[in-house]
Structure formats: structure tokens, C-alpha cells
């Protein structure tokens, strides 16, 4: 076990590494899943190799977690003095040049820096990600260490005040005081529901029991969301520390982190981190010599979205089919193994140490009246800067999309933003100025969700999108309760009917009625929110539904049954490219002959549309 003094010593020693003098360099490579997939491993290996070859003892190389700018991976950053240079889209063959010119010659290689590569027309001489618009509005609390420290080093975490919050709690505060701080901060659950974290803790704290549990929801099932993965891969100790604090606050000695098995890197780093924390005596019996005992176990999800729901998650940890249980009793009363339990999301936990260290006022000073702090979003879809952004609550959708996200590609028009994944809804352009927080999103029929934010442009069919989400829920429904098991299936079938042009206006009424019924009657959150994508598109894009039903047309040109491909003879150069591309020989014509598509044969695969270089094949 390591003593308090020793921890302080580690902090002071390692901190120095992070303040490299002018002629020393600290090089970090983003090695979260995204970076690794983009090839960061070979970049890292090359850096290490060459630096060793050249014997550069004024350079340290280490890996780090997610920096957030996905489309620019692999990312390498070089710190020296107070300079930070962000290199993007780095491959192994660029490494030599960077080493030679920058690490040995002292001049950043401008052409590889983020400024040079950014598409949004910013200055070429921007060297660091911090100076980009993508980063400027961000405020990193949950992600503060991600992309900075080496997640596999507890010492680096400690260097950034890691575990100080836990130490403060168990040496300075009573459990009640800890809960008071969390309550006063106004922190609300980042897993989707937005339940006030302090209140959740106090409910569990007041239930007496021989055993209580602290659980972390790292199931992150929402397709398109990867905030929690990034935190676990980039800063696992923050979650561990926060869970120990939670254990202290509610009187639990055991915690479980439920991680989806699809996150091998996160699991690996968590395991390393837990072992390190145990070794340092920050987990286990009598933490740092006090009489507080707390330990952690990892449980792997096995592929079921519903296991993100709290009671299903606990049932799954118990080793059963992950079917939700009715509530009440709530987990705070009867949770894991029938004992009082709290469950919080990864990002929720990642905020806790900061709140303890910097105080609840500091945290509460960010955000809106009822939603404090920041929120991490995974920006995706039809937007220029995809990636991970952490913004203060209350940032407007416009700021996120136009400034941080850099707008919609190809000059297309913004149509909607989807938040909350399969439980959420679509925000139309009329709500572009909305300040993003829990209550505002709910009021317009969407929800915060875990933080997926998918942007859609004019080419997206909103009925099709609703169908896409329903397809997901039908697949992921656990099948326990009637409204969701059968109801979502029928919803999906109705949407299918609409998108294939076979529906009537009565069907639209029935669709809506069934949506409200499922919301009201389903057993768990999955079913209760499954109709949201339908309801919000019905609300904001009713005309699009009507076009499918009444005119039998898909205005966005997505729904296969409702579009046809025709050849505009005035543009056609009679080159036969389309004819050759057609898999079903639906196109009549020959060189120098008019080309015509036989609609009865056409299967609407779009191959001719892609094949024609002259824009002569048109969708109608």
C-alpha cells in the first residue's frame, strides 16, 4: 500500500513531466479504439523506434485516450514548453519528418497540423486543436484527462490530482457531506434519464442493509454513441475513483462495472487501472489505512441493448437473462442481489472527482438553471466535424452544428438532429436555437439520451429514419411485456406499410394511437421510449408522412417503393454505362440509341444512377 505522502510525491514528480522545458518534448499518440482502428499503433511503434534509434533523450513518447476529433485520427500531439502542436491524419511514413524537423529541428511541420488539414476554412497557422472552432466552445470536465494522460498509468492520473478527491472524502468529509456536495452541484445522470445524482445516492444511503452495491453503467448500447467508451479508454481511474467515493457515500463495499464486451480496449484499460488502484491501496480493504473498504469487479455484457436499463443490468450481473423487473421497488431499495444499489453512468462518475475537488459551486456555475455542468456528445451523421465534443449545458443546437460541427457537408440543408438514439427524437430546423439541456429536449419530444447527436440533411427521409430506429428496438426488445414485444413489431410493420406506399390516413392515426399506448403501458424504459422516434417525426414531419400515404411519394427519395429512376433523354449521352451497370437488364438502349428504363423490371437498386456520369439518370 502507498501512503498519502507517497501519493503526493508521485504527483509532484510526474507533474514535472507534463511541463516539459522548451527544449524537451512530450509526444502523445491517441490510442483509443478510433485511433487504433485508423492505424495509430504503427505510428506509435515508428515513433518509439526512430526516437530510440536517434537516441533523443529529451523526448518522451506515450499513448493517450481519445482527443475527440475522429475524422482526423491518427492524431499525434507534441508538447514543449507552453506550445502544443496537434498533428492529424498521421501515418508511419510521416513520422520521420516530424521527428527530424520538429523534435530535432524545433520547427513544427505545418502541413500536418490540424489547422492545415481542417476543412472549415480556418487559418493554416493554427497548430493546436485548442485553437480550432471545434474545440473552442468545449469545456472539458468529464473528458479532462482524455487525450492528455496515459490511461495505463496511475501515476499520470495522480499527477492530475487523481485520487485526491477520494482522499479528501475519506479523510475530511462524512458520507453525508459527500452526498450534500453532489446534491448541491446539481449533477444529473448522464445515462439518459437525468435523475439528480445526489438524490439517488441519498436514497440508497438511508436504506440500512448488510450489503449495498455501487454499479457503473458502461453498456453504452445506443448505436452511434461512444462517449463512455472514450472515458473508459482515456481516463479509467476517474470512474474507479468516483465509484469508490460513491461507495463511501452510500455505505457500499463492493462495486460492479458493467461494460459491453464489444469494448475490448476499455475492458483492458479498466482491468489495468483496477489492478493499479488495488496495488496502491486505493481499492480493497482499509483504503489508505482508513476503515473504508471498497472493491470493484468488471462484468461483461453479452450483447443486449436492454441491459443498459438499470434493472435489466442488475439482472444480467446476477447471471440471468437480462429482462427488466418492475419498479418499484427501486434499486435504491432493492437492487443488485436484492440489496440497496446505485447505478450511474460512466460520464456521471467522471464528473464526481472534479466536483469534490473544485466544489459544487464551481460545477453549478456551468450550464442552465436545471441542468448543470457539461455534456459530452458524439457528433455524427451529415456533419463536417464528426467526433466527440463536451459542451456546457445550454449551448445551442446551432452552435453545435454550425460552429463546432462545421456545418453540413456538400452545401446541403440541415433537416433535423436526432438525440437520444432509439429512445429519443428528432429536432427540426425550427428548433435550431434550442439551448440543449435535459428539460428543453424533453419538452420538444426528444431527450438527452446518452449523448448521440446525429445530424440529418435534406436527403434523409424521416419516415425511413423512424423505421430504422424501430427496426433496432424490435431487435432489442427483451420480449417480456406485451406492449413492447408485440407493439413495437406492429409499429415497425405499419412504418413498413407507409414506406412501401400501402398505407391509408387511418393507418397514420392508428400508428399514433399505438405509439401512445406503448409509451403508457410498457414495462421498462426501452418500450416506454421506443415510440419516441415515431412520435417526434410525426409531430415535426407530418407532411412527409402524408406524402408517403397520400401522394405515394418519398420526398427525400429514399423509400425504394416510392421512387422511380428515369433517364432524362435531354442529358443522356447514350453511352450505355447505365445499361451495363443494371443488374436486372431493365434498361433498353444501345450506343447512340435512346435509353429507357423499363419500370416493371427495375428493382430500384440505383446502380444506373451511380453509373451515369452525366446526371442523366434521375430519381423521381
Amino acid at each position, binding site marked *: 500500500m502507498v501512503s498519502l505522502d507517497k501519493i503526493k510525491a508521485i504527483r509532484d514528480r510526474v507533474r514535472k513531466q507534463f511541463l516539459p522545458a522548451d527544449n524537451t518534448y512530450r509526444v502523445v499518440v491517441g490510442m483509443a479504439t478510433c485511433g487504433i482502428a485508423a492505424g495509430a499503433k504503427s505510428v506509435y511503434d515508428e515513433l518509439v523506434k526512430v526516437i530510440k534509434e536517434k537516441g533523443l533523450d529529451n523526448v518522451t513518447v506515450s499513448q493517450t485516450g481519445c482527443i475527440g476529433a475522429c475524422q482526423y485520427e491518427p492524431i499525434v500531439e507534441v508538447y514543449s514548453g507552453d506550445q502544443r502542436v496537434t498533428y492529424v491524419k498521421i501515418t508511419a511514413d510521416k513520422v520521420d519528418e516530424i521527428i527530424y524537423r520538429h523534435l530535432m529541428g524545433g520547427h513544427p511541420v505545418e502541413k500536418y497540423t490540424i489547422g492545415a488539414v481542417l476543412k472549415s476554412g480556418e487559418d493554416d497557422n493554427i497548430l493546436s486543436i485548442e485553437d480550432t472552432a471545434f474545440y473552442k466552445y468545449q469545456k472539458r470536465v468529464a473528458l479532462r484527462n482524455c487525450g492528455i494522460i496515459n490511461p495505463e498509468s496511475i501515476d499520470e492520473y495522480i499527477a492530475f490530482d487523481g485520487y485526491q478527491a477520494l482522499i479528501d472524502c475519506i479523510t475530511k468529509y462524512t458520507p453525508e457531506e459527500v452526498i450534500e456536495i453532489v446534491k448541491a452541484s446539481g449533477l444529473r445522470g448522464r445515462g439518459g434519464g437525468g435523475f439528480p445524482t445526489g438524490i439517488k445516492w441519498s436514497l440508497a444511503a438511508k436504506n440500512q442493509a448488510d450489503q449495498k452495491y455501487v454499479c457503473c453503467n458502461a453498456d453504452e448500447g445506443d448505436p452511434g454513441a461512444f462517449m463512455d467508451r472514450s472515458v473508459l479508454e482515456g481516463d479509467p481511474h476517474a470512474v474507479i475513483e468516483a465509484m469508490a467515493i460513491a461507495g463511501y457515500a452510500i455505505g457500499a463495499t463492493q462495486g460492479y462495472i458493467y461494460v459491453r*464486451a464489444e469494448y475490448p480496449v476499455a475492458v483492458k484499460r479498466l482491468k489495468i487501472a483496477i489492478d493499479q488502484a488495488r496495488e496502491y491501496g486505493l481499492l480493497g480493504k482499509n483504503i489508505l489505512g482508513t476503515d473504508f473498504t471498497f472493491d470493484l469487479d468488471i462484468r461483461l455484457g*453479452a*450483447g443486449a441493448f436492454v441491459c443498459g436499463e438499470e434493472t435489466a443490468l442488475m439482472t444480467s450481473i446476477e*447471471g440471468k*437473462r437480462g429482462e427488466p423487473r418492475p419498479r418499484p421497488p427501486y434499486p435504491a431499495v432493492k437492487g443488485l442481489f436484492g440489496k440497496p444499489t446505485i447505478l450511474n453512468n460512466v460520464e456521471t462518475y467522471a464528473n464526481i472527482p472534479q466536483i469534490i475537488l473544485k466544489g459544487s459551486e464551481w460545477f453549478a456555475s456551468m450550464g442552465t438553471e436545471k441542468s448543470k455542468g457539461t455534456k459530452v456528445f458524439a457528433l455524427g451523421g451529415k456533419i463536417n466535424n464528426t467526433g466527440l465534443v463536451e459542451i456546457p449545458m445550454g449551448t445551442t443546437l446551432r452552435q453545435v452544428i454550425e460552429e463546432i460541427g462545421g456545418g453540413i457537408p456538400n452545401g446541403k440543408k440541415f433537416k433535423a438532429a436526432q438525440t437520444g438514439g432509439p429512445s429519443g427524437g428528432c429536432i427540426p430546423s425550427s428548433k435550431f436555437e434550442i439551448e440543449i439541456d435535459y428539460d428543453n429536449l424533453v419538452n420538444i419530444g426528444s431527450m438527452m439520451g446518452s449523448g448521440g447527436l446525429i445530424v440529418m440533411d435534406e436527403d434523409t427521409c424521416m419516415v425511413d429514419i423512424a423505421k430504422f430506429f424501430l427496426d433496432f428496438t424490435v431487435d432489442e426488445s427483451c420480449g417480456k411485456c406485451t406492449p413492447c414485444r408485440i407493439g413495437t413489431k406492429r409499429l415497425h410493420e405499419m412504418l413498413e406499410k407507409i414506406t412501401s406506399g400501402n398505407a391509408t390516413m387511418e393507418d397514420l392515426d392508428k400508428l399514433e394511437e399505438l405509439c401512445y399506448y406503448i409509451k403508457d403501458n410498457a414495462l421498462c424504459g426501452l418500450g416506454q421510449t421506443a415510440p419516441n422516434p415515431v412520435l417526434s417525426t410525426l409531430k415535426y414531419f407530418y407532411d412527409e408522412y402524408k406524402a408517403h400515404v397520400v401522394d405515394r411519394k418519398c420526398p427525400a427519395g429514399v423509400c425504394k417503393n416510392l421512387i422511380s429512376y428515369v433517364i432524362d433523354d435531354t442529358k443522356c449521352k447514350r453511352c450505355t454505362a447505365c445499361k451495363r*451497370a443494371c*443488374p436486372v437488364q431493365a434498361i433498353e438502349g444501345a450506343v447512340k440509341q435512346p435509353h429507357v428504363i423499363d419500370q416493371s423490371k427495375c428493382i430500384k437498386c440505383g*446502380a444506373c444512377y451511380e453509373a451515369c456520369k452525366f446526371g442523366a439518370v434521375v430519381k423521381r
Partner: protein
Amino acid sequence: MKKSISKIPFRGTPEQEKQLMEVIKKHRDQKDALIKVMQEAQEIYGYLPLEVQQMIAEGMNVPVEEVYGIATFYAMFSLSPKGENKISVCLGTACYVKGAQALIDRITEVLGIRPGECTEDGKFSLEACRCIGACGLAPVMTINDDVYGRLTDKDVDGILKKYMD
């Protein structure tokens, strides 16, 4: 999605069984470790056939139906092995109308497996997939990373031969 159950005879080795028994021994008294044991069993065997589920059930002292219920609830668990060569036939619309079903039928004839299954010698597994975006070449099938297009059922034998030994 309903999981398809493999008809391949179980070919577990004594070493695999020994590994599994060790896993079970470690977790025997842990009421909540069933899923963990199943995950490790799948690592050992590649899938969870009846024989393995029975060993788990007996070892963990639960009805085998409970194991099966879990295996069919979570997407990660597989009831059929994957082959050394993974054949995937596109059943997207373009491929379908161009006779992809005939490809599948021929493969089934030659190898004796249906989609979702694996040959007895573990050499091939067959899957039907949705559009892989090569509609212009329809019908399309892939074996591992190789893409084959513009196929007829007559091409199947020749292509499979390449992977036979």
C-alpha cells in the same frame, strides 16, 4: 433474431473439457457467474453446443434450459461454429432477383449446410447477408475477404474447390 442451432456433431477435445472444468470449478459457488462461465466456454469452444451447455448446467447446478435461455437472449452467444472459410451470400434485392437463392441452394447441395450452419469438418460456414454494396455485380458472394460477382449456380463448385484443401 432466432438463433440457428448447429447440427454438426460435437467435436470437443479433452483439453477443452479440462479447461472448461477449471473455469467451472473456479466459479461453481458463485451464483451470479453463469454468464461469465458461458462467455469463457465460448472462448474455449468457439460456440456453445448442447454438450457444452450441459456441462455448464451440471457444473453450475442449474437446469440446462436456463443456460439455453441465456444463450439465446444475448446476441454474443452462438449455437453454431464458424467455419475456417466464411461464405456469405448476398440476399439483398438486386442479388436476390439475379438468382442468389440458386447460389445458396447449390452451396447447400455441395456442402450440406444451410445459412447459419457450418460443415462437419469445420471448413466452411454459410451466411446470408444484406446488401454489401456491390449490386452492379449481382449476384454476389464473398468467401472470407474475396468477393465473387456475376455468379450462376454453375460457378459455385469451381469457387468452392479453391478453398477445399
